[in-house]
């Protein structure tokens, strides 16, 4: 591969990393605020891709324009899940909610199989197959669009957490739920809204992935894995660190692909995941602000 090709490849990796960061944001919020290992995150993400797919095919609404609606719909869909399933397990330690979400993951995957069939789908938009020329460089337009949208959404979530009352209560609930409750914070409600917010972000990320790639009811597992790698790399509850970690993962995966072949992309991500877990388990960027 020549230098120009390598540059295309690395920039594509950075842009794709932004999309992966948005997809992982929900996992980070659930872990950071609720200490919940959301094993159904991948299925929620794939659910977002299906929402985008069917909104387009039924209403003709472009999935990029429909992203806020998709996020909202997914948030509304999962909100009762928290109230009915996770909230009652609040006092049972971290294992019970994690295993519950494992069960939810299987149920959601099977529900999607029954509802949508096992067929592989992809959201067919012209911009998903269009190159973006920047001088001599060429990157997929959908990666650039997805990156821009992801950065905007991640900044919006950051502002929500740092500049609003909801965000303050969310941070207080994450730091010390009992103290927050003693000060009048509705911790259970905040957790439910945080869960819904995370699911909304995952759904929007899933829609972007559905446009750029393909998906089926069983696609969620691989995105759950890359989501964990990003969260571990960035550290819990740090919104910007999730973006930086996503970009770093995308870049390193691309570098791995360029050096060793595309088949080694995932391996690079997983090795990085294990390395960070071993050397700095709190995450490379942990403790550097929200």
């Amino acid at each position: 591969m020549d230098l120009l090709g390598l540059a295309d490849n690395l920039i594509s990796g950075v842009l794709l990393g932004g999309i992966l960061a948005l997809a992982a944001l929900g996992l980070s919020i659930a872990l950071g605020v609720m200490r919940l290992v959301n094993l159904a995150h991948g299925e929620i993400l794939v659910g977002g891709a299906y929402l985008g797919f069917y909104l387009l095919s039924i209403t003709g609404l472009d999935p990029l324009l429909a992203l806020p609606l998709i996020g909202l719909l997914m948030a509304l869909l999962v909100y009762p899940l928290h109230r009915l399933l996770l909230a009652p397990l609040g006092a049972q330690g971290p294992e019970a909610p994690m295993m519950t979400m494992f069960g939810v993951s299987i149920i959601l995957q099977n529900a999607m199989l029954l509802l949508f069939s096992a067929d592989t789908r992809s959201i067919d938009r012209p911009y998903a197959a269009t190159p973006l020329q920047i001088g001599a460089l060429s990157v997929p337009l959908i990666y650039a669009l997805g990156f821009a949208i992801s950065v905007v959404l991640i900044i919006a979530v950051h502002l929500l957490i740092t500049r609003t009352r909801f965000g303050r209560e969310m941070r207080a609930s994450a730091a010390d739920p009992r103290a927050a409750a003693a000060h009048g914070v509705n911790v259970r409600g905040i957790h439910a809204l945080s869960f819904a917010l995370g699911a909304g972000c995952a759904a929007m990320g899933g829609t972007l992935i559905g446009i750029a790639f393909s998906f089926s009811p069983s696609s969620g597992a691989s995105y759950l894995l890359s989501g964990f790698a990003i969260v571990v790399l960035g550290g819990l509850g740090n919104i910007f660190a999730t973006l930086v970690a996503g970009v770093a993962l995308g870049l390193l995966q691309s570098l791995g692909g360029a050096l060793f072949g595309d088949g080694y992309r995932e391996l690079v991500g997983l090795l990085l995941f294990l390395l960070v877990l071993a050397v700095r388990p709190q995450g490379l960027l942990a403790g550097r602000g929200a």
Partner: protein
Amino acid sequence: MLRMPMPRKPGRIGAGCPSAWIVAASLACSGLATAAEPEVLIGASIPLSGSLASFGSYEQWGYNTAVNDLNTAGGLMIAGQMHKVRLIVLDDKTDPSVTQSNTETLISREKVVAMLGSCTPALVNAGALVAERHKIPMVTPCDPLMAFKSVRPWKYVWDIFFEESELGSAPFRMLSDLGIQTNHRALVLHDNGPDGQVVGGQIWPEVAAKNQIQIVQNSAFPVDNSQFTSVIGAGKSNGADLVLVDAITPAAIAIRKQLAAAGYRPKLLVMEKGAEPQQFAQALGALADGVLVGGYWDPSFPYPGAAQLAKRFESETHQSSSQHIADTLTAAQVLFDAIAAAGSTDPEPINAALARTNKIYVTGPVKFDAQHASALPIVLMQWQKGRALVVWPKNRANGTLLFPLP
């Protein structure tokens, strides 16, 4: 081995997952025998979920159709009495270890008298080894013959599909036959599954070398890979006119999108395996136009029931037909013919009857060689406006090659 129908315990098969519903549906479709009628149990473990589910849905239809047709005609004559056939279908979730455990369950617990195969070498061979160990006959489609033969000398397993060498050489033979000019540079992408390694890792490089075509890069990747920007970048910077891909459908869709998004437009794009099912064209829309894929059956072929089979599938499912309905139907019919010829449900007579198979089915003539393989001739199909047309060889073509790739 023969069984009188007994009330089934609820949730006995695939309880707690949608496959239970699928199985229930397939049992209903396959025409449950009425009380007191003896029945012959046949098992099949096929991918109804996971990345190969698109193939599994066609297989399920093909197998069920063969069973329904047989039962409607009265069933199988065994020991002077007509027997209905009951097919037990389990979902292998596109996981060879599940295929193995399903096959074990079907043979050991359900006591099936014979098995029908799954799809792709990884799944088929996994189940075939279990059937072989139990000395239970299995007839399978959808397992390329070189990958099938390389596993072991088979005694109880029989395969009806194409030879990888035929498939791998087809694009090169088409270029030669049709006098198509390219810059003699090719990019190869293939998954590291058994058939991907054989076609992409061995056959394409060998045939390309014989045809003075330089492979600018040959990239292997895990079956579930979704990002291919590095190898696509290499192909683009080398200006390869030919792109040869062997990958499952999700990867093939991702590759096609990423080729276009990288602004790389090769003149000829072959996507084996992944471009076969209708959902490939549905997912890609106009981007599927011009993509070539090897095939072995089309409703236009001059075999008994070919045109009717496709119409029947389309009227029942409201989907476009696939060649997989034909090879699965054929595999089931070959097995039923062998059981009828054996006049027994014992494995040895059925196996001996399978060895004697020599008949024209909907996919063409079936006659097994010494290695238990019956080869289907290869054609090249091309997606054009949502339809897969046969474009090579000329004597089989029902469409004209779209060249270069739009």
